[in-house]
């Protein structure tokens, strides 16, 4: 049972350079790399199609310069795409007037930026309340809401600080608080943790998952870090040179990379972090004595200890509680040490 699509975008192009629009029309909308180069343009996003469903974490990943930021800026219409179609809640985003866009952004979208982009002249409290201030919400009300979100991100007690008095991690917490202040339906995060050092990044990812567990937002999350992507994602879109190469769940990406490039990305990922019981189990109803039940969507990493410690295999069940297969110690060890299971 799939959730409804919240943001649907088809055939997005973004070409930088003079006369991009003309060049696009002249070539009938399908430019090759050579054509783009000979026109003196930069093909930042080329024919990208993605669908983002209600309540999921959709990760866009790719190397630096692959067009991730540009795509997300097109989705939020921070920049105008050269061509393409974007439907948000079924409405055409690109044909909206400035006024409608302002309205949508004020009520339905939030964004977190790579370099935090806090306003230096405002305190933590004022920064978090800024989106509401812009909407003309009375001071007492917006500050009350700002205090709520500040507490949510764990910065209670620092309301009166200025951004420069905070560490990078704390600053990004403020950025997150600010983007949550208006209770957006659609939440964009452009490499929110890339400017932080690894330990803090890990901590912020946990924090982020905790928040999502409470809020259930629809999230578009950009990263160039595959580990981060598989930790967070429901779906991952891999980009290369402006094109979306593959959209899939982390597991599918590891099991069936669409191209060499995606394969290269996924090769060194510990498979236990990605694979779920469903793809490792022995299908069919098991016989004999069992240690217990495990859901089929569980990742191996999460249940490895439990299975390895038990002499008996486990039943694997689907969402409805029906038994769909079984898994034992050997299969888990195979995955953990990276051995291909015997055919």
């Amino acid at each position: 049972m799939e959730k409804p699509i919240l943001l649907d975008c088809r055939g997005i192009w973004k070409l930088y350079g003079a006369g991009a629009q003309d060049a696009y029309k002249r070539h009938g909308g399908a430019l090759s790399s050579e054509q783009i180069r000979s026109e003196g343009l930069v093909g930042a996003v080329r024919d990208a199609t993605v669908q983002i469903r209600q309540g999921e974490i959709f990760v866009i990943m790719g190397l630096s310069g692959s067009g991730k930021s540009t795509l997300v800026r097109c989705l939020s219409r921070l920049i105008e795409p050269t061509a393409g179609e974007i439907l948000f809640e079924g409405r055409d985003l690109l044909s909206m007037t400035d006024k409608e866009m302002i309205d949508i952004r004020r009520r339905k979208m939030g964004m977190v930026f790579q370099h935090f982009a806090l306003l230096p002249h405002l305190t933590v409290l004022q920064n978090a309340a800024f989106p509401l201030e812009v909407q003309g919400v009375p001071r007492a009300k917006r500050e009350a809401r700002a205090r709520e979100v500040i507490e949510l991100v764990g910065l209670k007690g620092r309301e009166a600080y200025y951004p420069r008095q905070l560490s990078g991690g704390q600053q990004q917490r403020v950025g997150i608080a600010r983007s949550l202040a208006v209770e957006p339906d659609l939440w964009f995060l452009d490499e929110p943790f890339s400017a932080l050092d690894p330990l803090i990044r890990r901590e912020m990812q946990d924090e982020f998952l905790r928040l999502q567990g409470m809020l259930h937002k629809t999230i578009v999350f950009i990263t160039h870090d595959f580990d981060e992507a598989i930790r967070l994602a429901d779906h991952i879109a891999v980009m290369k040179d402006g094109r979306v190469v593959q959209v899939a769940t982390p597991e599918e990406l590891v099991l069936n990379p669409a191209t060499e490039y995606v394969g290269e990305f996924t090769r060194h990922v510990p498979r236990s972090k990605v694979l779920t019981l469903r793809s490792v189990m022995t299908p069919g109803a098991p016989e004999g004595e069992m240690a217990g039940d495990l859901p089929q969507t569980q990742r191996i990493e999460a249940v490895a200890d439990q299975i390895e410690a038990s002499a008996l295999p486990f039943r694997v069940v689907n969402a409805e509680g029906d038994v769909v297969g079984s898994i034992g110690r050997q299969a888990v060890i195979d995955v953990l040490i990276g051995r291909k299971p015997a055919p």
Partner: protein
Amino acid sequence: MTGLRDHLPGRNGWFWLALFAATWLLSRYSWDIYKAYDARWIIKYPSAYILPVEARISAFMRWLVEDAGFGLFSFRDVTRFISTLIEIPYDFMRDLLIDGFSSGLGNAAVQIAPPLSWIAIIVTLVAMGHYARDWKLAALIGACFLYLAVFGQWNSAMVTLASVLIAVPIGSVGGLLLGIMAYRSPLFERLLRPLLDLMQTVPVFAYLVPILFLFGFGPVAALVATIIYAMPPMVRVTIVALHGVPNETRDVGVMVGCTRRQMMWKVIVPSAAPTLMVGVNQVIMLSLNMVIIASMIGAGGLGFDVLSALRRLDIGGGIEAGLAIVVMAIALDRLSQAFASRNAQAYAPGRDRNLFQRHPWLATVLLVMICTYLLSHVSPVLQAYPDAATVSTGAFWSDFMGYINVHFFDVFETIKGALLSYLLLPVKRFFVGIPWPWGIMVMTLIGWRAGGLGLAALTGTLTALIAMVGLWDKAMITVYLCGVSVLIASAIGIPMGIMAAQNDTANRVVGSFIDTLQTLPSFVYLIPVVMLFRVGDFSAMIAVVLYAMAPAVRYAAHGIRSVDPQLVEAGLVSGCTPRQVLWRIKLPMAIPELLLGLNQTIMLALSMLVITALVGTRDLGQEVYIALTKANSGQGIVAGLAVAFIAIVADRILSATASRMRRKMGLEQ
């Protein structure tokens, strides 16, 4: 095997050498040629062909003031309107600081309230110093203003302060608004840029005359001139600052749904505030720089004191008032810089705090104001600093200068004589002797070699125009004075800059020396120089050198410092001595920067030259100055434009050369 060939100039070198030789010969023998062929036009532009621009402009200005109208209102209404707009706040400021508030006019005036007491003003400034940074700054500012009171400069200083307090907000806000418009509309920016460039090169004196003509002698005209002078840097800084706001910050504004106006005033301008404050600081410094010049058209205050002392050749009085301006400049400079870099402290939020606890300084200042007001009825000392307690240093300075003059007269005279007869006079003879048609040709040629045909057309036309309005001779004297001063300023400044770049201690010493030089208003240089060397070209030159040296030092230091360290290492690895590293690697690589420094030095020298007209030079500056005393706007504008043309020609040629060299070195595409 370095043969003679290595030391011969290349093809380019031969060209310049030949050009110089020809010019020198023509200059040396122009008089003889004129005699031999009876061709007076060679040395003097025929007066029958002088373009009547001057008269036209004068007539136009007269028409503007007397007859011009735009239907509903006349041009005169516009200037009256601007006058009132400036006059009201200015009068208020003056009442507040010196005159006191009164009702009624003339003899019937009754004072309602006295001006702020000197104590209250000092406490206010100290409070601002502490608020902006710390006790050290507060003490410095307190000391500066106490100095003004103790040394009897208080009243003049307050007049000057009043005009600064009016000019700075108008100049800053006006500059900010123009900058915002330029930021929003690229078209407007394209229109504004050349105007800003011109404003920077036209000497202040040039627009002093038309302003005098439009607004009449008095503080309003002085304020208008000050604002026009101080605003362009603010416009530039604003444009740079707004463009410097990170894209992400702008995106934040869009994503939270800002309207256009909210975007500008809630996101972009506040984010750019620190840089904008640098612009405000510039406006303050330039306003103070104008203090003396503005007093020529009625500003009063410290500037007027300096000017009249200079005219009376009153050594002590001039130095006293000049020092007062310096002291005020230092205080206001430091204060505004502190505001620019102020870090707001996080405060512990407390609910039940009263006004006094939340705003201790505001409360203190108000309290002091009220107390001094009430108590001044009891003791007038609290109202105005007692005259009896002032100390005058005038006599001391006069004696000091007298002492120096008596004991070192011979030394100074020898130096002066030597420089005059071996440097200044030969150069002067060279420039003045150049026949004007040849001069135009040479400038066209130089423009062509430096930047191609377009530049050649520009330099040729501008040079020709100078000749055609009949100002060739004076322009050549300007070029000679400027040239010699720039030469000496570079000869002193560039080695200083190099030293500063190589050595940290030298850097600190040179840095603070240059900072001080730049804080001083340009006129201040004139006072001691005139005292020591009396009026004339030589004094003018010394004052210009002092004033124009700073950029030579700064750019040299910056140029040497920004040489790619890898190049230096490559030199060291291949066994260069430190000397060779400097001469073979750093200096050649720094040449473009040195050229830019030279460019700035020339600009400053030209603007200072106009001021030195006061000490009796015979150049374009004097022409402007005469126009000012006669309120002849045509003459003033034409002479001012001639100076601007010289500046533009020098600027374009040097910039073109610098960027060509940068391209050659691969530093620029």
